[in-house]
């Protein structure tokens, strides 16, 4: 007998702090603020919560979050590895818990001072005298940042399919266009042109310019997951989990999976995609809008291919500003994404997907029935399809 997750759980609440470059308060406080905001949004109390799920990289302990919120009884607490690759997986974990009865109301969160505290962009390596073991095979040669890890793989993708940095720039233009209309976005009111993109300095030549790289942000986002039945009685239209999946492919590394016969794809996203379409019974054409994890623009193109929105090698022609912008065939990252809104490890992109289902986005897409979200790429990852009841 096969038991499907389809339709069993829903996201009933979303909450977030402001997105900044210096929050001025602890990561624990950001986590608590986001979680409380999400519960208020759902119309639930901390006393209703019995599950907590976050990222292994999150610095706030479950017990600390619970004692701050006043959650008296927890029956599920779980963490997902691989940084942003865990974004949709926290909802997957919560939905499985709800479907099996391990918990009834689960809060998923991610909160950090990634800009004012420990930055991932390599600044922390500047004073290093020794490499962490996971960087042994790449670090001594100068690959010390996520941008450089992604670029070496994306350079091969460019070579195989005739893709240029200008093709990547279209994603930046789309994200900043959407962010410009989102008051919560760091880049609110500040759209860019492709010329701005092409004039920005190289971070890793000839793959990534400054405007191909996501922001570094301080902030927190939380999501409340409960059964679809219970969610129906709460404040908002439930964002029903129609599919949720994780994926790790053969010969994977944290963000340096260079040793496979071919490195021009993202096979972990292929594993996620196959599950999402099978579980939901949907096809790419059934999706009206998506959050495609955009830490670095090249992998947004590769994701479009892995998810089946276009064929392999064709994303450079498919991914036009018109098609991916509001009013187009497949608007993506309508809150501005990680490039335009904030870098909260993808959780802000999932919150935006919930707003699209509710019909409350500041870049609302018409006639939304199904929304797709993905998580961090270049590493083991995850994905979600949300829909209406």
């Amino acid at each position, binding site marked *: 007998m096969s038991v499907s997750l389809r339709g069993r759980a829903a996201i009933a609440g979303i909450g977030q702090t402001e997105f900044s470059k210096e929050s001025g308060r602890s990561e624990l406080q950001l986590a608590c603020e986001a979680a409380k905001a999400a519960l208020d949004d759902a119309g639930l109390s901390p006393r209703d919560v019995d599950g907590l799920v976050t990222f292994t990289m999150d610095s706030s302990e479950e017990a600390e979050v619970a004692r701050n919120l006043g959650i008296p009884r927890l029956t599920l607490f779980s963490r997902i590895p691989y940084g942003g690759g865990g974004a949709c997986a926290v909802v997957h974990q919560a939905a499985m818990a709800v479907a099996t009865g391990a918990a009834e109301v689960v809060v998923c969160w991610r909160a950090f001072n990634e800009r004012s505290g420990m930055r991932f*962009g*390599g*600044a922390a*390596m*500047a004073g*290093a*005298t*020794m*490499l*962490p*073991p996971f960087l*042994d*095979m*790449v*670090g*001594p*040669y*100068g*690959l*010390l*940042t996520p941008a*450089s890890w992604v*670029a*070496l*793989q994306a*350079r*091969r993708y460019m*070579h195989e399919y005739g893709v240029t940095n200008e093709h990547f720039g279209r994603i930046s233009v789309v994200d900043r266009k959407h962010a410009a209309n989102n008051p919560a976005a760091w880049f609110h009111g500040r759209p860019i042109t492709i010329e701005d993109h092409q004039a920005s*300095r*190289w*971070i*890793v*030549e*000839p*793959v990534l310019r*400054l405007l191909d790289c996501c922001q570094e942000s301080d902030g927190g986002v939380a999501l409340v997951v409960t059964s679809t039945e219970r969610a129906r009685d709460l404040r908002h239209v439930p964002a029903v989990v129609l599919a949720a999946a994780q994926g790790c492919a053969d*010969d994977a590394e944290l963000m*340096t999976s*260079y*040793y496979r016969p071919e*490195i021009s794809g993202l096979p972990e996203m292929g594993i996620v995609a196959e599950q999402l379409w099978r579980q939901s019974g949907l096809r790419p054409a059934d999706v009206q809008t998506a959050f495609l994890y955009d830490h670095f623009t090249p992998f947004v193109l590769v994701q479009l291919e892995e998810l089946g929105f276009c064929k392999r090698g064709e994303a450079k022609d498919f991914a036009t500003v018109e098609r991916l912008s509001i009013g187009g065939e497949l608007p993506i990252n309508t809150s501005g994404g990680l490039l335009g809104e904030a870098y909260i490890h993808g959780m802000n992109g999932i919150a935006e997907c919930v707003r699209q289902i509710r019909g409350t986005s500041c870049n609302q897409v018409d006639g939304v029935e199904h929304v797709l979200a993905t998580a961090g790429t270049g590493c083991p990852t995850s994905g979600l399809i949300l829909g209406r009841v």
Partner: protein
Amino acid sequence: MSYRLGPTTTPDTKFFWDGLKQGKILVQRCKGCARLRHPPRPMCPHCNSLLWDTIEASGRGTLHSFVLPRHPQWPWFEGTYVVALVDLEEGLRLVTNLVDVDPAEVTIGMPVEGRVEHFDDGVSLHQFRPRSPR
């Protein structure tokens, strides 16, 4: 003074770094199925054998991908440097630097050849250069 950020060796990778100290690029060969593997790991993913020895790689290969990191600047590199992904003749792939080359002349698929260099801080690494096709 020419120096590099050194590795943190583990029981799984010690042979590789010891090999470089002796001027050799060593790769693992499974004693169960004779397949070669890199990067180092304790178990063969094909036959699950924990037994292995090493062979010295020829150092000959072709360029699979490359980039020029520009930001941030590190104390270990001066100016433009090339990070390369090389397909070795042995059917393995490794990350390295491509040196003694004009970055404008670097193309994917070009033949390259590697040898070990010993830096002033005691770190030994393989470094590759363009080679004439055989």
